[in-house]
């Protein structure tokens, strides 16, 4: 029967109603349990 994915979507930061935004660029790890800290995404600093 699968599982209720609400909490998984929530932990991914995927909203249901408000505007969609990218999640893979700040993806911490495939599992919520190993995603307890945020990771540094790509960023650009002009010279």
């Amino acid at each position, binding site marked *: 029967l*699968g599982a209720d994915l609400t909490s998984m979507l929530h932990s991914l930061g995927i909203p249901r109603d408000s505007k969609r935004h990218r999640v*893979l660029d700040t*993806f911490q790890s495939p599992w919520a349990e190993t995603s307890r800290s945020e990771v540094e995404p*790509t960023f650009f600093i002009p010279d």
Partner: protein
Amino acid sequence: TKTEKYHLVFTEWVKLLQRVDSDDKIIFVFIRQLIEKGVLAQSDSFVEFIKASLELSVLTFKESDPTGEVFTAIDALGKLLMKLFVYQDFNKYSRSEYMNIIFSVFLLVFAKDHENGEGSFNERPYFKLLSNILYEWSILRNHNFIKVSDSQTRKELANYDVDFYNTFASYLHSLQPFAFPGFSFAWISLISHRMFLPIVLRLPQHGGWEKLMLLIIDLFKFLDQYTIKGNISDAISVVYKGTIRIILGISNDVPDFLIENHYELMNNLPATYIQLKNVILSAIPLKMLVPSPYGVELDVDALESCEEPPMVFYDPVADIASLKKPVDNYLRIPSNSLLKTIMNGLLREDYELKSGIGYDTLTVNSKLVRAIVLHVVIEAGLENGRTSSNAVFNTKSSYYQLLFDLVHEGSIELKFQVIQVMIEQLRYPNIHTRWMIFVLKNMFTSEGWSDEKSTVQEIILRSIIERILVNKPHPWGLSVIFTQLLRSDKVKLLELDFIKRVPEIENIIKQL
């Protein structure tokens, strides 16, 4: 020994990086000296140096206090490899060869440690090094390599970008869980790495899609192999959880990848993974607004989006092989002999063991069935665009006829396989979904089944219900057809024998 000398040089590098910024002039001088003083002059010495450095870094990790800095040497190695990538002259060999040498050395040192480690193998330093390489490259490539001052080098690096990711992906493919189970969780973390996955998904002209599909299929095959009914290990459950989370991320960010590759994904997805199947097939293009599938006034035929054919990255025609001619000929002019040829071609030479819901073996080539059904659907969609919907939304059309005949003439197993694959085509609003709703509804109410009407209806309904019963999401087209069947006056679901025979199902239908 030579190895000890390499260790000394590498240790100097590690220490240097702890004292100065990595863009400091001293760093450049150190690297130039590495080359000029012969440490890296020949490819042999280069290989030996990298090997020694990697082995030392891994050893340092294993011996470090786990509460302190364990990755100092690994971090330094990653930085060194990328500095060399940028600063070298590349007269003797190309950047591509350089990368292959590095990854090959990595692979061999890694393989020996994994197989021979006798319990001391730890995936983390290897993961860290690959993660660092991804990090270094993503910094370098930012804003089209604008930080690289030399314009010639900048051009070369920009040209190499797609190759970089495809090379990385190729080596990841070698590191897959079947080959190195001790690296499985690190591997899954790498294919979904924030500096790999979203970039590969968006490379120009889908340049990374083929290799990415290879990796995802590696994962699916691994899951398929070890998803044993009634006995799924905790480790495999965790792998599954990570997989569905990654696919959800892709569905959110780049749904087109799942949409255009759904065929290959379905070919390799374990048969009992219904929710994951739904997640993949529920993907909707980014800017599309989708009307509620439950709306009483929903008219699928009136939707503009339902005129559009979905993109397909991998043409199933390639998989139809020897049956392409009979199928295409049948679509031109249906005939019994062509049908017989096609049906014979769908039989396997030997049993395939396949863990399904209610079955454990297949005698029918399910992949070939999928290829043919999708091919017919694609052709129907094209015909709709070329001529008119009357040519295609017509139970007398050869497109409908072929699918009908396969279900009519086929064994129960073939009926089931064909219908399963047809129901996979119920996705977001598009011409394939719309046509498939037409086909399935007509098949459900058709009087042309002779004494098999009930069987066909049961299989159609079973295939729909097993996808609808699981937790969300559900593909739009699937919800549409089920809603229409529930509401239809023509179809009185509760009066069907096979529904009445199973009280649990009868109750569900009653409630819905």
